[in-house]
């Protein structure tokens, strides 16, 4: 019964919430009404947008020494998680069989494990930094902590099910993934999709005013 629920209705429900929620949130951002900028353009908004989207991948050199740990841990976590999600053999197989109908070459098992280790270490360090730094702690909301813990739990249950020999452990992992998908559109996890438009928006705004930032 639980197996049927997790593999069937709950999976489709969580997928629907995720897809509709993400589209709704992105739509509401993109189509939100904005005041017309009446100022005289000093520079190109488009080039400012493109420049900012890419320049934000590296920290400003003025603050780089202070945030070195966050940058390294951030890249470890995000790249590790990306590799895990889209190149781990069980995930590629799952996407092929249940969603896309086609697959691609997965990474070798050792790379899968190393990616998971990078992702775990990065996530633990980022979350701890959020807790120990007074400024980060003050500006963090409950959602930030829930997102970190939920993502950690999803990764941990995936780690527990690595042997792929137990239905119960597979179901536990899939259940936590479904919770994660349902929570995704209503949380800070949306930055997965919004970081590009938000950088572009700020970059365009700065670019139009000739601000080099």
């Amino acid at each position, binding site marked *: 019964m639980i197996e049927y629920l997790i593999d069937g209705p709950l999976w489709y429900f969580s997928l629907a919430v995720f897809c509709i929620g993400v589209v709704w949130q992105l739509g509401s951002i993109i189509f939100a009404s904005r005041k017309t900028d009446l100022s005289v353009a000093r520079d190109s908004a488009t080039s400012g947008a493109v420049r900012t989207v890419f320049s934000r991948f590296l920290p400003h050199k003025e603050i780089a020494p202070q945030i070195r740990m966050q940058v390294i841990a951030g890249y470890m976590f995000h790249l590790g998680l990306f590799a895990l999600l889209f190149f781990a053999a069980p995930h590629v197989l799952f996407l092929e069989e249940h969603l896309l109908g086609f697959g691609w070459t997965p990474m070798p098992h050792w790379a899968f494990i190393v990616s998971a*280790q990078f992702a775990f*270490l990065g996530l633990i360090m980022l979350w701890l930094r959020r807790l*120990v730094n007074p400024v980060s702690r003050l500006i963090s909301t409950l959602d930030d902590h829930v997102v970190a813990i939920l993502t950690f739990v999803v990764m941990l249950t995936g780690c*527990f099910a*690595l042997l792929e020999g137990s239905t119960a452990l597979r179901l536990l992992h899939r259940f936590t993934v479904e919770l994660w998908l349902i929570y995704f559109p209503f949380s800070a996890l949306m930055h997965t999709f919004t970081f590009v438009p938000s950088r572009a928006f700020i970059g365009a705004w700065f670019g139009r005013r000739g601000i080099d930032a």
Partner: protein
Amino acid sequence: MILACSMQLSLAGASNLPPEKPQFPTGVSSLNPGSELWREVRRRDGSGEFNEVNQGLLVNELLREMRSSQQMPQGTSQVEQVDSGVLINAQGKRWALFRMTTLVDYSAIAIAAIFIIIVLFFVVRGKVPIEGGLSGNVVKRFSDYERVVHWTLAIVFLFLAITGLILLLGRPLLMPLFGKDFFALLASASKEGHNLFGPLFLVSLIMMLISFGRRNIYEKGDLTWLLKGGGLIGKGHVSGGFFNMGEKTWYWMVILIGLVISISGLVLVSPNFGQSRVIMELTHIVHVVSAMILIVVSIGHMYLGSIGSEGALEGMKSGYVDIKWADAHHDRWGKHCHEQDLIVSAEEYARLQGQTGNISEPATEQGK
């Protein structure tokens, strides 16, 4: 009719021919170690004929000899792998027995003992107070990065300790409570988690070594701290620098025993680098014994760093410690803080923690 007759003749002739011998590739002396066993049975039997009872007894006798042997009898095999010529690993039986009884018993006793010692110590001594209470004025002890490194190591270590203890003690302790099916799940999950998190412990150790190593080098005055039992025995606090002798010893225990655990863990988790079974068995014992030492001492560290000593936990929570705590436990460092005017008032500390006003970092000794 002629065709039928010729077929009958050819079939009759074929049945009288001796059976063909199987053709093995040249250079292969034996198919597997089992063949060596049978060859030895035939040699001892001497009759050259098959005798089920006699040869059965000889097999049992040989197996007994192999199990009780100090050396593993080596056969030959076409499989070119480490130990592929070994039919019975007598050492493995002894290791399995040691792992299932001695290791389990002593590990459980060690954990129970440390908890009893801590409870007794708490009852007798209570929370070690700061004379006159805390002042509220603080001094910065650890940077954000140092605390992140400490807690990362702590989280990874705790996860490994819990999963490791489930694997070590779960069979006698948890299986009777939760049943075989649930324990099988728990053990499988623990094993996968333990193997994946193991290398993270090594990375955390290296970060710990880089962040804290320099300040944990032993110096003049540390021996006095040791001779006075760190102040836990008797009354009054003992002189100490930024880290006292006890903290430094604990630190080097973590680094050195942690390295032993990490390296032995890597040997265990990567069995495809030519390690023999005996190496794996010895490594496993080294891994468990060193991990148990670290687990037991870490329980004492957790106690002393939290409920055992007033004001100690603040250093790893906020990064600041009360100046009276510094004067009491680390007087040489406390004196340095007084001289360098590194003390932060209670009001400023509250502001730094975001309780009021703007936030700015004060000058610190570490410059971080």
